[in-house]
């Protein structure tokens, strides 16, 4: 049962014994998944690990034989590879952006959500960043994108959107890793104090000598505030730059001014869907029912609904202006995607991104954990198709009808794609073993009474004082 703020405030006016017990309970609940390993966990790690190995094998085969083992051809030089790249970079907008915005708005319900969102970001950028490396013809020369001083005096081409991509993604990866790491420091300290042996050693290093002094809390607060502000423009710019890979060319239906905001919208859309799915799984498997409550799914569901409508608005605007403009080059692509070869995919996308999610998410009765999870699953599928439909129909119906082509993926591309999902699962699973998936100290902050925003004293390692009250409490703490 969800407690109201009034009830919690009443509770807190009593002697602090109960708050103390609640804090202990939080620590217990959230550290449990780290110290105990279930059979299901091992199976999940094995399955996702196998998928990753399959991807490594497929990539090895591709390196040995040549990129011709993919289905790409002339004129469809990009297909599954870049679809997956855009898809994963899109998913990465789940965490950092949402978490930063919620932090800046001081939305207190965010507390159990931020960590798992930020983790999605970091891992999907890693995956998204690896894909271009696998997709180039000579992956062993990928480092030529780095502007390093060399004897030949050659620099990369700063006019190329691919180079902007490189910098944007590197910046985003650095930023969001920092953003994930900063609020984890006190939790690493909590693990350090609760563990022994090797784990203790690692966490001692990772907690950077955290003692929970007021000075340290203050530094952390300031650093997180700066990062939260800095990461928002970075996140927006990243997907805008990804969209420029397409819109900076002359290719029909790529060369579009709407692509920047359209891509950012799609990214946040798929990102929230991924977050809801991850939360539903975590809730079930890590038994976090008291932390990730229907409230969170309800709130994120509303956000998802907004993004779904916004996505539809952008898609509609893009298609309508193309149709109205009626230039032959663009119309060739336009009809391919909505009426001819790609029509089944296009209408599946519309169903997945709009027709299924909107009714589910707009009715409170359906905006439950199951409801939002179902909507999120279809959105993930729909958004993947959306990326594919942006890339492939435009390429295979470029200007000259003589050079039109057909694309069919091969098993190598399928394996690499499955492997990218396996990698996400594996990284997420391993992360959940290293770090509490819900920030312990931030949950404890939720137990503290209102006391201004400034930290003055902090008695314990992971118990900051004086922040804002609210957020769900474990409900069955004994009186």
């Amino acid at each position, binding site marked *: 049962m969800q407690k109201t703020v009034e009830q919690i405030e009443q509770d807190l006016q009593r002697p602090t014994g109960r708050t103390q017990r609640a804090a202990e309970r939080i620590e217990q609940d959230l550290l449990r998944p780290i110290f105990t390993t279930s059979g299901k966990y091992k199976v999940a790690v094995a399955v996702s690990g196998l998928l990753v190995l399959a991807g490594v094998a497929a990539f090895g085969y591709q390196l040995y034989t*040549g990129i011709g083992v993919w*289905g790409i051809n*002339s004129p469809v030089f990009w297909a599954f590879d870049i679809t997956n790249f855009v898809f994963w970079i899109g998913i990465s907008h789940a965490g950092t952006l949402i978490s930063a915005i919620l932090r800046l708005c001081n939305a207190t319900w965010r507390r159990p959500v931020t960590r798992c969102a930020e983790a999605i970001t970091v891992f999907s950028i890693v995956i998204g960043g690896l894909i271009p490396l696998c997709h180039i*013809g000579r992956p062993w020369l990928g480092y030529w*994108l780095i502007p390093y001083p060399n004897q030949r005096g050659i620099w990369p081409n700063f006019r*190329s959107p691919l180079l902007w991509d490189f910098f944007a993604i590197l910046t985003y990866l650095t930023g969001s890793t920092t953003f994930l790491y900063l609020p984890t420091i006190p939790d690493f300290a909590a693990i350090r104090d609760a563990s022994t042996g090797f784990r203790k050693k690692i966490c001692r290093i990772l907690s950077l000598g955290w003692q929970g002094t007021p000075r340290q809390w203050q530094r952390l607060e300031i650093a997180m505030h700066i990062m939260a502000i800095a990461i928002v423009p970075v996140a927006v710019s990243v997907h805008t730059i990804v969209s420029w*890979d397409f819109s900076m060319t002359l290719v029909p239906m790529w060369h579009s001014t709407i692509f920047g905001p359209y891509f950012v919208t799609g990214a946040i859309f798929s990102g929230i869907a991924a977050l809801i799915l991850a939360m539903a799984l975590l809730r079930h498997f890590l038994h976090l029912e008291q932390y990730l409550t229907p409230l969170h799914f309800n709130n994120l569901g509303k956000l998802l609904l907004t993004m779904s409508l916004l996505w539809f608005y952008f898609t509609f605007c893009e298609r309508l202006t193309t149709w109205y403009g009626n230039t032959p080059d663009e119309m060739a692509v336009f009809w391919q995607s909505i009426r001819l070869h790609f029509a089944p995919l296009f209408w599946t996308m519309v169903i997945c991104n709009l027709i299924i999610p909107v009714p589910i998410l707009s009715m409170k009765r359906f905006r439950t954990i199951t409801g939002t999870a179902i909507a999120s699953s279809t959105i993930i599928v729909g958004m993947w198709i959306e990326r594919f439909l942006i890339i492939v129909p435009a390429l295979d119906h470029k200007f*000259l009808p003589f050079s039109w082509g057909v694309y069919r993926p091969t098993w190598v591309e399928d394996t690499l794609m499955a492997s990218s999902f396996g990698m996400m699962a594996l990284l997420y699973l391993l992360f959940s073993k290293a770090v509490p998936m819900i920030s312990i100290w931030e949950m404890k902050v939720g137990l503290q009474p209102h006391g201004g925003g400034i930290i003055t004293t902090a008695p314990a390692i992971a118990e900051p004082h004086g922040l804002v009250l609210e957020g769900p409490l474990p409900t069955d703490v004994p009186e």
Partner: protein
Amino acid sequence: MAHKWGLVVDLDRCTGCEACVVACHAENNVPTVGKDQAAIGRAMQWIRVERSWEGDFPNPKVRFQPVLCQQCDAAPCEAVCPTYASYHTEEGLNGQAYNRCIGTRFCANACPYTVRSFNFFNPSWQKPLNLQLNPDVSVRSVGIMEKCTFCVQRIKSAEIQAEAEKRDLKDGELTTACAQSCASKALVFGDLNDPNSEVSRLASSNRAAKLMGELGTKPNVTYLDRGAWQDAKNS
């Protein structure tokens, strides 16, 4: 004065014999990929002859159009290459530094004419074709983009020769393999900066048009077509 190389394709003369395609393969070490690969769209051709039909059976009119790299002055392929493998040479050619290419294939996507060929596998030549590789042209390996260079090796060699003899290049002194092999003289290569060259004369013909010139890529290949001219005259 610097040279500005250009090519004129006279569509009214082209017979569609594809001698230019064969000559280009031989001159530039362009690999043949085999039937199966060609069927899935991986044929490598620096120049290709496109066919189209006008009118219905029983009197269709067949038209041929050789398409090669247009050597654009405002080339969409050059700006997008992250490593400068595609670059603009001082003589206005769209250069391709094979050794610098990492195979992002962005240039091929950006090219409106789809004239870039990608090495999906390491190239191989059927015997005895492996014995006729041109020593002046490097052989490209897997993962590299390649395209028509206007036979830059011939241009360079002629320029060096002329410089050694301390004289200017004469019009017609050098030509590309495709133009050389064209039996009907549909292809003419030369210096557009020389107002008296044959290519300049033809390029200013009232039959002249650029392939998708409306895109603003400023091609240095000009197509001559009587049909377009007559249409314009009649309208």
